[in-house]
């Protein structure tokens, strides 16, 4: 992803973040180098083409500042002249760059003294990960998508009606307490209910002595008329 694909607002936000992070990083560096590094890093950041590339550059500057500060602190050799063995470059020091000796270490240590400092490198890594996570997630948190959702007026509106459909032992179909005269009338009832939204629930309660043929025809007709909410009720009566 490069800067051209970013929205102008996001690009401006990233540039502001780059400047803030670089300034923060430069302040982490030794005081004598802080101003120079800030100007140098901001200039080099502007040479990067993409917004995220500049942001990655700025975050890297944080790490660079810690490394430079660590080098600067390590430059203070015990006798002030000879370098520590693990840092052979240290002796020429930042003195040439104008670093103040007082900034290097809090005090001169005797030769051979073990410095029991906390290794802050993993802490810096974790901090950078958290910072990147925060930076990436901030625009997402502030960006809301407006959707017009249907408003619920009353719970009763959503509750489907219940129609009782009984089938007597002699095959008579009873629609909500009213005997159905013919299969065409039942077909008309089913079609009318199928058009409703939501569809009513049809509770089918056939007599245990009625022929299955009658029940099957009622079910087939309901299916043909696209009745979706139909089911047997009081099924415990059929168990005996």
């Amino acid at each position, binding site marked *: 992803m490069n800067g051209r694909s970013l929205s102008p607002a996001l690009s401006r936000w990233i540039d502001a973040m780059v400047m803030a992070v670089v300034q923060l990083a430069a302040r982490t560096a030794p005081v004598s180098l802080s101003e120079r590094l800030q*100007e*140098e*890093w901001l*200039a080099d950041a502007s*040479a990067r083409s993409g917004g995220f590339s500049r942001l990655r550059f700025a975050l890297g500057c944080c790490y660079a500042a810690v490394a430079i500060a660590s080098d600067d602190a390590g430059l203070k050799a015990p006798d002030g002249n000879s370098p520590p063995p693990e840092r052979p*470059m240290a*002796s*020429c020091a930042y003195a040439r*760059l104008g670093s103040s000796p007082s900034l290097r270490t809090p005090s001169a240590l005797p030769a051979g003294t073990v410095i029991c400092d906390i290794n802050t490198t993993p802490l810096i890594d974790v901090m950078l990960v958290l910072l990147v996570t925060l930076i990436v997630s901030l625009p997402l948190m502030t960006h809301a998508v407006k959707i017009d959702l249907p408003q619920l007026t009353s719970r009763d509106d959503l509750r489907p009606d219940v129609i009782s459909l009984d089938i007597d032992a002699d095959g008579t179909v009873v629609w909500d307490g009213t005997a159905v005269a013919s299969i065409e009338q039942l077909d008309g009832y089913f079609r009318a209910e199928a058009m409703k939204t939501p569809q009513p629930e049809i509770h089918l309660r056939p007599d245990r002595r009625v022929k299955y043929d009658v029940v099957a025809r009622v079910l087939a007709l309901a299916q043909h008329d696209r009745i979706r909410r139909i089911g047997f009720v009081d099924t415990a009566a059929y168990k005996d």
Partner: protein
Amino acid sequence: MGRADRAVRMSLQTLRVLEAFLASPADELSGADVHKRTALASGTLYPILLRLESAGWFVSRWEKIDPGAVGRPRRRLYRLTPSGLADAREIFASFTLGRGVPA
């Protein structure tokens, strides 16, 4: 500045930076230029540049431009010193001759 003062820890990344400068020793390169040639991240690149400068291998100066006229901020330009150039060439020659990693 004695030879001991000029000792720099020669990591692979440091060698890549030196190689970028050795490609055209007379050129002055900014950190952005070195990044383009080495693809080193800023967290690695700038400590190396400062170490090499503090060790006398590089000198640096501000670019002499008018930021308002050019439309961009001035950059810090690094250049190999004559002694740094000689040392860098010696190091890469040692690799060429198969003498292994220089001390």
